[in-house]
């Protein structure tokens, strides 16, 4: 009795809806995804290892993870700041800014890619200012960071916002009444409460950034060893009909994605545990 799969219920339709869910999930997601692992299984370990550790691939990992990490860190800081400003302050245009936060979710990545390139290219609005100073943004790693910051921007804001809004003002008032300064209150009372959600948001932004393709390929310049991200490398291998190589790198990316998914799940559990 204890091992019963499903609790009895008066509502009808479990068999149909659950059955269809499993069927469709398998058909669209699980079976196709397993194709990557099974295809990779045809490679010998040596083939696999040489492919995924060749210098060009290693350089792409460094770039992808490095740029994604920096972008996630930028979003952690500014996302927190934006969330704070949107939750705590009233100012003209607050509603407007609040609603455009989700723009990177809604805007096709290719559009973001060409728009950012137009701004940061040496002839662009900002690029033309930075070029004389010797700062290269577009077609350099900095450009990649800019594109990834754009795509990851909503994650931290949207995960921190509800937590910040739920935070009871009483705790802060209590701290203030006990003589804490604003900064001490933030550091000792508010920050520990929102830290899990900041980390979750950053992890989500990082996971998204590692796989990002559309917004990066226009601004990055795509030079092997220098500005070639890992997803682009997969595309390049595919274009050269090197399916085995593409599959091997894809397996590495998938494993990392799943690990990130696991970490994010744990972080989210941490967030919900901290709430009453």
């Amino acid at each position, binding site marked *: *009795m*204890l091992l019963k799969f499903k609790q*009895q219920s*008066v509502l009808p339709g479990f068999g149909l809806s659950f059955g269809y869910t499993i069927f469709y999930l398998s058909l669209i997601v699980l079976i196709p995804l397993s194709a990557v692992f099974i295809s990779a299984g045809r490679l010998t370990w040596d083939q696999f290892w040489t492919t995924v550790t060749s210098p060009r691939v290693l350089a792409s990992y460094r770039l992808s993870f490095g740029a994604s990490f920096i972008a996630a860190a930028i979003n952690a800081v500014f996302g927190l700041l934006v969330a704070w400003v949107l939750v705590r302050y009233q100012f003209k245009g607050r509603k407007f800014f609040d609603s455009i936060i989700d723009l990177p979710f809604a805007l096709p990545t290719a559009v973001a890619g060409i728009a950012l390139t137009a701004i940061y290219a040496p002839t662009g609005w900002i690029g033309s200012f930075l070029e004389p100073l010797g700062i290269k943004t577009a077609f350099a790693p900095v450009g990649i960071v800019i594109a990834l910051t754009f795509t990851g921007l909503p994650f931290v804001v949207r995960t921190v916002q509800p937590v910040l809004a739920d935070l009871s003002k009483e705790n802060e008032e209590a701290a203030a009444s006990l003589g804490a300064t604003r900064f001490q209150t933030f550091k000792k009372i508010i920050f520990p409460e929102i830290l899990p959600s900041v980390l979750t948001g950053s992890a989500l932004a990082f996971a998204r950034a590692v796989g990002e393709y559309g917004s990066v390929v226009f601004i990055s310049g795509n030079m092997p060893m220098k500005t070639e991200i890992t997803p682009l490398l997969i595309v390049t291998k595919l274009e050269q009909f090197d399916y085995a190589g593409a599959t091997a790198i894809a397996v590495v990316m998938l494993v990392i994605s799943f690990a990130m998914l696991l970490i994010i799940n744990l972080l989210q559990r941490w967030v919900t545990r901290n709430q009453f």
Partner: protein
Amino acid sequence: MSIEVRNISRMFGTFAALRNVSLKIPSGELVALLGPSGSGKTTLLRIIAGLDFADPGSGPILFHEDDVSNHDVGERQVGFVFQHYSLFRHMNIFENVAFGLNVRPRKSRPDKNDLKERVLKLLKLVQLERVAQLYPSQLSGGQRQRVALIRALAVEPKILLLDEPFGALDAKVRKELRQWLRRLHDEMSITSVFVTHDQEEALEVADRIAVLNAGRIEQEGTPEEVYDNPANPFVCDFLGSVNLFHCRVHNDRLHIGESELTEVSPGHTEHSSVVAYVRPHDIEISRTPHKDAIQSRVVHISTAGPIAKIQLIRLDTNEMVDAEITRQHYKQLQLRSGELVFINLHNPRVFVHDYVI
């Protein structure tokens, strides 16, 4: 229509909500399932309705001798009033009440005018005809409760089941509605079962009460029966406040120390140690010193309300005793806080084992 359940058990994981419960509800009665939270009363009600399922091996559920345990909830044709009303929030009040009639098979569905008439009649019955076009969120709690009731009655069920029907209302509305439920029940010639954790509500409204605790029915009977002759300490305690006295039985009388107190029904073994359960209004307070009384000190007096509540402390054991006397009696006695008095016990319910509250 009478209701009978036999040997119903229900486990939720490792938690036994109901253990082998049997109950018979005569046709036309208004019955209360009374018990603390977790006692299984709501589960029993939901199993009768068909919203929950008895474990395999349980006995049948009979509506007027017919076994309905294999009937779907919709086929049992019961009226069910949910604790939080469960009004359809996207439908107005009229549509809510009409829903049960509207989903009938085409053959038995009343035509438009008939349906409108019936719904309006019900709305009139609960004086809500003016809110027919409003939505549930625009109504007060008491109004929603009444809508939930007539929505259940619109399909003319023979059995009406109510889950904590007044639980979420404030005290005054609660009182009004329970008298109103009683009248409605009498007019409708229907069998009604309601779940409550409020003993006052059960005692006042119901024809019969089933007291549940930890998945079992502890006692079943009329309000007088369960109040005056509780079957066990739990029922005694749950049906009102009560004082406990550890006593000895000697010559069919209760003894505490040297004091020889009130008589008890015969049958208790000599010198057996028992616990006497005495309701506050059965504590007699007197000024006259008496050797067969318990000497106590008045600690606190509260006279706001129809009766005077006296809190005393026994000098022999330092245990607290609550007494209730009429205000008239209180005026005659002119009790003061701190003074010494003598108390005697009336109508003790004597049980051998101590019951842990």
